């Protein structure tokens, strides 16, 4: 049996990545939330932090990662009540992990004080609190998504002065790893875990996001911190959403948090925050890696679609392939930009071959996915269901002719397969 871990806020920015990471690491996931998570291996249980009730959790659960937070600026009492409900529902041996914020380390804002109060509650309940720094990377959601949007819309960024605030970024996947590690840490000990990288200036952080979004450097306008806070204060009053500005302001005002001890203890090495130069140089670091990996998946999808469907790969289908792959594994298997006739022959040689290694089996799984994606495009409906029979009088002859050719090709492919399959694998697979 896979160990079972419960996650609140599994549909959120961190929750979504954490869920995938947990599944990949061999856990089953129980998602507690208002909206169901539609991923294989996830069971859903209804839970609402604004109207918390004690959920029913199976006894085999090994721990609960509480990510859900009230971002509408609701009452702290409800959040505390939610914590108590969750703790009450947990079996005795299971661990409660509360994802707090760096702002709780030395709070200066209501947001930070609130988090600190909840951390105290967690300690009383025998749980563990995690203080992540500024989370980035992965899908553009949450605060990270908001910041990406912000820098995409404007080419001029504030260079914050008086004071020049620092942030400690952590990649969302690294945070997920920290959380899963904390889940398995020795029991019977409550503590606070600082999960954040080396401090960098907040404007450098924004500039890096901008480089990633826009592919170019941004201009800077020196802005006093106080002005930004006033500005954000206005906009948040207008939208009624307190949290973005509040969380930003509190993060920006946060003092440096020493993380090395916690990280060394947990044995996790955080990836370095990429520099603007590496992003613009498209080298192999974090965020540009996501782009390169998507490009490779798009190219791989294109090759397989052309192989199966004998069509110019429709953009929507190629994208659907890359999206689905990212949701599950995220790594391309085939070399990019192969010459089509070459890759088609090589794919035919590996398709249905008997002696299958792990890579080959993975390739066949992907071909089955592509087969379904190709079939569900209108172009295939015409090519598979209509075109072969258009000439009524000659259809029987054409049909038998086409089948005869395909059977002949199959015989040739089978004959070649026995000694050319290894060469085909060398041509097709990248060496990662």
């Amino acid at each position, binding site marked *: 049996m896979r160990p079972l871990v419960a996650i609140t806020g599994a549909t959120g920015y961190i929750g979504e990545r954490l869920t995938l990471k947990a599944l990949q690491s061999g856990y089953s996931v129980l998602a507690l939330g208002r909206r169901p998570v539609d991923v294989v291996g996830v069971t859903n249980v*209804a839970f609402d932090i604004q109207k918390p009730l004690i959920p*029913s959790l199976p006894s085999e659960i090994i721990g609960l990662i509480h990510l859900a937070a009230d971002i509408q600026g609701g009452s702290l009492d409800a959040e505390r009540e939610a914590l108590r409900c969750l703790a009450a529902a947990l079996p005795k041996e299971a661990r409660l992990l509360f994802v707090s914020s760096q702002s709780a380390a030395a709070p200066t804002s209501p947001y930070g004080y609130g988090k600190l109060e909840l951390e105290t509650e967690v300690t009383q309940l025998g749980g563990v609190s995690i203080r992540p720094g500024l989370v980035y990377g992965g899908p553009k959601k949450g605060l990270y998504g908001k910041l990406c949007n912000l820098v995409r819309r404007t080419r001029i960024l504030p260079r914050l002065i008086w004071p020049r605030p620092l942030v400690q970024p952590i990649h969302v996947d690294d945070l997920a790893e920290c959380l899963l590690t904390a889940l398995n840490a020795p029991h019977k000990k409550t503590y606070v875990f600082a999960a954040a990288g080396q401090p960098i200036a907040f404007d450098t952080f924004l500039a890096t996001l901008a480089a990633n979004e826009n592919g170019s450097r941004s201009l800077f306008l020196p802005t006093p911190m106080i002005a930004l806070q006033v500005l954000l204060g206005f906009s948040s009053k207008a939208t009624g959403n307190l949290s973005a500005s509040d969380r930003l302001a509190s993060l920006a005002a946060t003092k440096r948090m020493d993380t090395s001890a916690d990280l060394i203890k947990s044995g996790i090495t955080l990836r370095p925050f990429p520099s603007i130069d590496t992003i613009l140089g498209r080298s192999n670091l974090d965020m540009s890696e996501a782009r390169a990996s998507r490009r490779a998946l798009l190219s791989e999808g294109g090759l397989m679609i052309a192989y199966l469907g004998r069509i110019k790969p429709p953009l929507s289908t190629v994208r659907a392939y890359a999206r689905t792959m990212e949701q599950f594994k995220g790594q391309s298997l085939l070399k990019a930009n192969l010459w089509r006739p070459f890759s088609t022959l090589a794919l035919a040689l590996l398709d249905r071959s008997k002696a299958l290694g792990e890579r080959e089996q993975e390739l066949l799984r*992907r071909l089955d*996915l592509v087969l*379904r994606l190709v*079939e569900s*495009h209108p172009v295939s409906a015409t090519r598979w269901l209509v075109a072969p*029979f258009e000439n009524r009088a000659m259809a029987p002859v054409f049909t038998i002719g086409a*089948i005869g050719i395909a059977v002949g090709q*199959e015989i040739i492919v089978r004959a070649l397969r026995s000694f050319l399959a290894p060469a085909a694998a060398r041509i097709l697979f990248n060496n990662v």
Partner: protein
Amino acid sequence: MRAQVVVVGTGAAGVSAAWPLARAGLDVLMIDPGLDMPTPELPNIDYLHARRTDDAQSKWMFAHRLSNLTADSPKFRVPTLANVFSGFAELQKIHTENFTAIGSIACGGLTTAWGAGVAAFSESEMRDWPLPRSALDVHYRSISRRIGISGGSEDDLSEHFGIEGEAELPLDAVGQYIDGRYHSARARLSQRDFRLAHARLAVLTKDRGSRRACAQFGLCLWGCPRGSIYKASDDLKDLLKTGNLRHRSGIFAETFRRDGEAYVIRFLDRRNGQRGEIRANRILLAAGTLGSAKLALDHLGHIDKPIRFQSTPTAAFALLFPRLIGRPPSGGTGLAQHWYQLGNDADAVCGGLFPTTGLPISEFVLRAPFARRLGIVVLSRLLPAMRVGNVFFDGARSDHRLTLRSDGSLFIQGNLAEGFALHAKSTERKLRTAFRLIGGLAIPGSFKAGALGSDVHYAGTIPMRARPQPGETSADGGLWGAPGVFVVDGSVLPSLPPKSHTLTIMANAERIGCGVVQQLSASR
């Protein structure tokens, strides 16, 4: 919560048992664990048209998942039916060995995704029952009227079906060809004990209430957008209109216990994770052959002791009609158009012949001995001249074990009775010959046995007996040792002949429901 009668489950059995209760004006509460999750919407046009024009077809055709296409029914992979099958094994905590446990915790149960085949049991098929065949007559008739049955009448399978269609559904080109060939080879086929006729299906040929007549859209695999195929959730809507009945979804009955004259059902509310209780004078278990068995065994404290039950082992094969090669795909219903029976008595098997148009070509490509790229060419050309056939074997050919464990999980061990392989082999041989006589070539290597349990015809976990023992039920469906608790679904069928058993479950459920009404009015 309180109710005079609680019906656990809103599938075919639950709604059939609820009708007499609601008509008698009893206070009835129906519960099921379903949570209504959004599923993609189906186009309201015919399959071929939808495929050529719908740019968003990938949303409803396939689930975008990275997994090997497996050899079981394509139904289990269809996103529009995901609600029907998902969450069953997890919620019921089912573990299996050599068995694929399929069930539903959704409102309407498995009828939302069924093949709509209907047939009545014959006298000899009911020889293990503690009641005469005639006791079901009136209920077969009333259920048939309620759900609406189309298909043949007075033909070579009238005896097999024991029930006639009100009107015929049109046949597609292959169907008409099969009709003609069967007619000319009928004498020779009857010598071989092979009979064929138009299937009897729970499909409407005339509009009725919110359900529309079948328009041959061919989207049957994905769930009919017109509601032509009967599903229990349609019945539930009509039941609610009677005003005597309440329905709560998201309620998973975990256990029940006696409390004085009444029973208390302990449930988990899946919408908020809370546990709660319902008080009832009578309980009707309609949670399915596995779900009801779990509740009954738990109540009896029958822990860690295996019980037997049956399913109908299945096989499938592909038939090619060489004379039809070159014809374009034609529309029409995607359900079985023809039904056949081979052999007599204990050796009898039956099955349906299904059109291939409304099935994804990829389902066939994965089974064909070709590189996928070439398989697409071959199959897209051949499929319009093909039928998929299935075979149902007698339930007595299976011998499964089900155990309720002390941790509340169900363990199922699937087994075949001795001699099955030999029987299957000889059946395959006979079917090949029979189909050759109607112009169909059973494609070599295509005859494959289905995974045990993938037939989804389960029965006999708590069988009805004349003298029930612990873990059995009496002829009126009453559970041994629990007066006032009745089991109304497939669990109580003592045996499983090789044919569609849904209609019989429904007729029997209605019969038990009528009995409960009589009992309650007598006690008043």
